[in-house]
């Protein structure tokens, strides 16, 4: 039909068809060590999340040993704010839910939760819940379904879901569902694959996936796949590797991952590798970064790549780590 579709073309580069595991490992290893790098400094305000992306990527490819555990745990613990019970993204910043989840994910990954005062964190998180069931990210007060996910995931990882009002959390998330079956940031805002993941993940944690119209949402999610094989986050946007995670994980939670063309998506993700530096970028040929490197690897893991460890759909940590915790959550079948 000659309909214009916003998409990219995959480069004809046979060398990108295999997974460049060693390159990715050395990319992450040097990224974490090069503290004088400008990119590293510019992202100071999200440092703890950056560390989580790097560690999880390394663990997924069996290279966690190459990271300096003691140094990292020291740093993460230095970001703990004893007054509020939240984690700062970096020293000299303010605590926030986003970094609290990242810090807890790191501690879980290293099996080091005993280092922290769980009750303080639980109190930080539960105080951020609003009367309508939504969550703000910090005491300054913006509401976002992302923060619902951060809160519920953090509490679930700590085994303390009882600390918030689950029924109200679910009500708020339901109120963000749109006419197309997707979810946005707050009620009324446009469906977006990243927010869909946060909402579906939250509902899975609350074991309330009955709220979703899984067929309609599944169709909206699999419509995100473009002819290049890549997935976008909203209609008429370019494909991006991080969406391979948000969309795939959401589809998997509702038992419909096979509705997309896995082979083509695999080719797309592979094509975003940088065969010189290592790492993955958002689209073929762009600059790589740890964020897209983690979600590229996690996406490939969900697609069944055997060179990568199994990844947990909801918490984006290696599956063996989550199994240790024996968490309880809901998954749907087709």
């Amino acid at each position, binding site marked *: 039909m000659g309909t214009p579709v916003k998409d990219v073309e995959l480069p004809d580069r046979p060398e990108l068809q295999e997974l460049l595991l060693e390159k990715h490992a050395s990319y992450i290893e040097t990224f974490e060590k090069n503290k004088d790098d400008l990119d590293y400094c510019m992202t100071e*305000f999200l440092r703890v999340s950056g560390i989580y992306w790097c560690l999880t990527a390394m663990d997924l490819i069996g290279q966690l040993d190459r990271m300096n555990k003691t140094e990292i745990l020291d740093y993460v613990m230095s970001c703990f704010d004893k007054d509020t019970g939240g984690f700062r993204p970096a020293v000299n910043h303010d605590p926030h839910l986003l970094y609290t989840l990242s810090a807890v994910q790191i501690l879980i990954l290293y099996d080091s939760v005993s280092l922290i005062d769980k009750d303080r964190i639980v109190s930080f998180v539960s105080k951020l819940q609003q009367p309508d069931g939504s969550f703000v990210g910090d005491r300054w007060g913006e509401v976002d379904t992302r923060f619902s996910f951060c809160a519920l995931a953090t509490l679930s990882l700590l085994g303390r879901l009882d600390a918030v009002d689950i029924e109200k959390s679910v009500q708020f998330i339901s109120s963000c569902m749109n006419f197309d079956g997707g979810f946005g940031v707050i009620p*009324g805002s446009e469906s977006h694959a990243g927010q869909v993941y946060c909402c579906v993940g939250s509902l899975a944690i609350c074991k309330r996936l009955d709220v979703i119209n899984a067929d309609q949402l599944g169709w909206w999610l699999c419509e995100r796949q473009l002819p290049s094989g890549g997935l976008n986050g909203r209609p008429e946007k370019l494909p991006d590797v991080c969406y391979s995670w948000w969309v795939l994980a959401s589809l998997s939670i509702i038992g419909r991952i096979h509705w997309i063309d896995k082979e083509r998506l695999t080719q797309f993700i592979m094509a975003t590798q940088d065969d010189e530096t290592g790492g993955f970028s958002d689209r073929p040929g762009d600059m790589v970064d740890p964020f897209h490197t983690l979600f590229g690897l996690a996406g490939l893991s969900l697609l069944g790549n055997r060179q990568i460890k199994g990844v947990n759909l909801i918490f984006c940590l290696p599956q063996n780590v989550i199994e240790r915790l024996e968490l309880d959550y809901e998954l749907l079948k087709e």
Partner: protein
Amino acid sequence: MSEGDESNSDEQGYVYYRDRPNWKDIEPIPQDDGPNPVVQIAYTDKFKDVYDYLRAVIRKGEKTERVLELTMDAIECNPANYTVWHYRREVLQELKKDLKSELEFAEETVLNEPKNYQVWYHRQKLVEWSNDPSRELYLTAEVFKDDSKNYHAWQHRQWTIRTYGLWSNELEFVDGLLKEDFRNNSAWNQRYFVIINTTGYTEEVVKNEVKYVIDFIKVAPNNESAWNYLTGILKGGRISDHEPVLKLIDSLRSQHVPSPFLLSTMIDVYEEEVANGKKESLEKAVKICEELGSKIDPVRKRYWEYTSRRLISAYGPLDST
């Protein structure tokens, strides 16, 4: 932006904070990169200078005019750093600053950095404090000229409209955007947002909306956003109750338009018919699923197979004759 003049933003005119006599009293705090600090050569000098002083004033809790200037430099170096924005707001409040020039600064920054969430949030706080939403619709419309799907701008616009009840011209605005680009999913979403919060989707409104969206689908039968809007507003009711939709389907089908959205809606209509006792429609629906999975939309083959299976198990078996 008067405070910033002496430290001109271009690199040549910039005077380091460490060289400014009026900052002599502050001991800068370098970034703490953990136990093994490496030589920080790749920081730009200005970046390091500004942030070393910023850390120092935040630790000290200083909220003065010169800190406003410092935060502005810090924002310029790294507008994504949310701590700076927050601290700047604390200083503005402490000094009881006139918000007019701050609103101008925020407007300029929003226009330069429309993808930066922090700027939008800052803007929202200023509008709240000054209780003056008069420029927000204009400002977001300016941003849409370059990026009509900017998520932050849409959120800001929705917030303004909802908070200050500025609903009256919004449908007209959305109509303009859709005429420019009928694939603009954000605009379709906004259309829904306005209607659901004003008239609601009454029978009358649904009728008009169906007519409205059909005109767009006729022009571009593969427009996902328009189809989603159409099926979205008909959810809960029956598609076959809407004559214009059935006509649209017939006409596109007779032109052999290979649109998965069209065919998917046909399947919905057939399903309604089967549910109403018209058995032969099941086979038609299943045939379309096959056509979609094998020819028109093979990427989503498994979805069409599922739909076919779902229909057969709900209404089957198929008459094999």
